[in-house]
């Protein structure tokens, strides 16, 4: 089915990732810049698979302290109570605010895990040069690109709580290290999604040996 499809790669062309001008490749080892906008040209994002794997593994490691360590400590009239991401969700469920509980659960727990699973799945399928449902896998990639930023909600909640609740001995809220790890997970998964090149999904044997 793919036999008559021309890609930039099998035609010896490079698409500028910044201005999308189609340029003729000068050979595999030549460093080229786009004649229109001056961006360095790459056939594919450099070291895409290795970089993405490294970032995914880092995110998985950081995900553990992000969920185990508290993200905030509330000090009220001498009593301190620390909260993790999950205990925040449980608090909202117990107080009957399940829509908010759902927002936090989806943004902070579901989305990061989903994103990591999708990226690992895409990496493995690309390494096996699979030609299985390429369009759907490209769509999965686009989902990881769009959805990742929403995980920052919890970090912003911490920022606002810390700003507002500062009433001396009466009540105050402090940020804790879980928030730093969680923020790192979000930033690293964003970078991982950026370093993955969806064109690799389409680089199967048949399309390369055109």
């Amino acid at each position, binding site marked *: 089915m793919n036999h008559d*499809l*021309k*890609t*930039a*790669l099998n*035609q010896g*062309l490079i*698409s500028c*990732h*910044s*201005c*999308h*001008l*189609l340029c003729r490749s000068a050979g595999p080892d030549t460093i080229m810049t786009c004649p*229109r*906008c*001056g*961006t360095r040209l790459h056939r594919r994002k450099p070291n895409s698979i290795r970089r993405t794997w490294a970032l995914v593994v880092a995110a998985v490691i950081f995900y553990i302290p992000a969920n185990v360590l508290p993200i905030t400590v509330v000090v009220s009239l001498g009593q301190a109570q620390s909260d993790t991401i999950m205990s925040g969700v449980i608090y*909202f469920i117990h*107080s009957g*605010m399940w829509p*908010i509980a759902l*927002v*936090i659960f989806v943004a902070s727990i579901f989305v990061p895990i989903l994103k990591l699973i999708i990226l690992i799945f895409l990496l493995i399928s690309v390494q096996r040069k699979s030609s299985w449902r*390429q*369009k759907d896998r*490209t*769509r999965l*990639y686009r989902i990881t*690109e769009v959805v990742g*930023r*929403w995980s*920052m*909600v*919890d*970090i*912003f*909640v*911490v*920022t*606002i*709580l*810390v*700003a*507002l*609740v*500062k*009433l001396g001995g*009466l*009540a105050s809220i402090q*940020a804790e290290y879980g*928030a*730093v790890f969680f*923020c*790192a997970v979000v930033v690293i998964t964003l970078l991982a999604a*950026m370093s993955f090149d*969806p*064109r690799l999904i*389409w*680089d199967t044997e048949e399309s390369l040996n055109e």
Partner: protein
Amino acid sequence: MQPLIACHDCDLIQRLPRMTEPGTVQCTRCGAVLHQKKRNSIERTLSLTLAGLVLFGLANSFPFLAFKLEAQVRQTTLLTGIQELYAQGMPELSLIVLLTTVLVPLAQMISMLYILLPLKLKKIPIGLPAVFRFVHKLQPWSMMEVFMVGILVSVVKLAKMAKIVPGIALFSFLALIFVLAAMSASLDSHLIWEKWENRR
């Protein structure tokens, strides 16, 4: 002859149709958006950028939220949380929040102004490619709309405990999110690159 383009998501080469009406061109193989033609792109994006800068000024100079518990009132601005995180020994966190909610959106708006104002006056700004690339690089790191959801969650969380009073800055911030979204939606990147290509 219409230009050839390679899809940025699947690398398929295809011919871009000539477009006279606003609309979207999608990749025939993977469905990625290849080109969006907008009506009056430069004028609209420029005016939204200017509106955005005004709202940004308002959002950063007026009270954002106030927190009332018994006789105590705590007044905050947009930057209070960032300062507070820094004071609590969380400089990394403070920096990320500062970048994603203040510095990146501001840098984006200033860069757009730098590109669009000369283009509107039929001039080509110096270093357009570098500045425009910078705008695209910043795009994923502007997270004001996510911050808004954060505000919503915090207000609900604190509503039982105390009274929350919204300030002018909060409403400016809310408007700014829509203006920024409209700004990126009305931008036609191909048009900007075409102007640069035909500069002489």
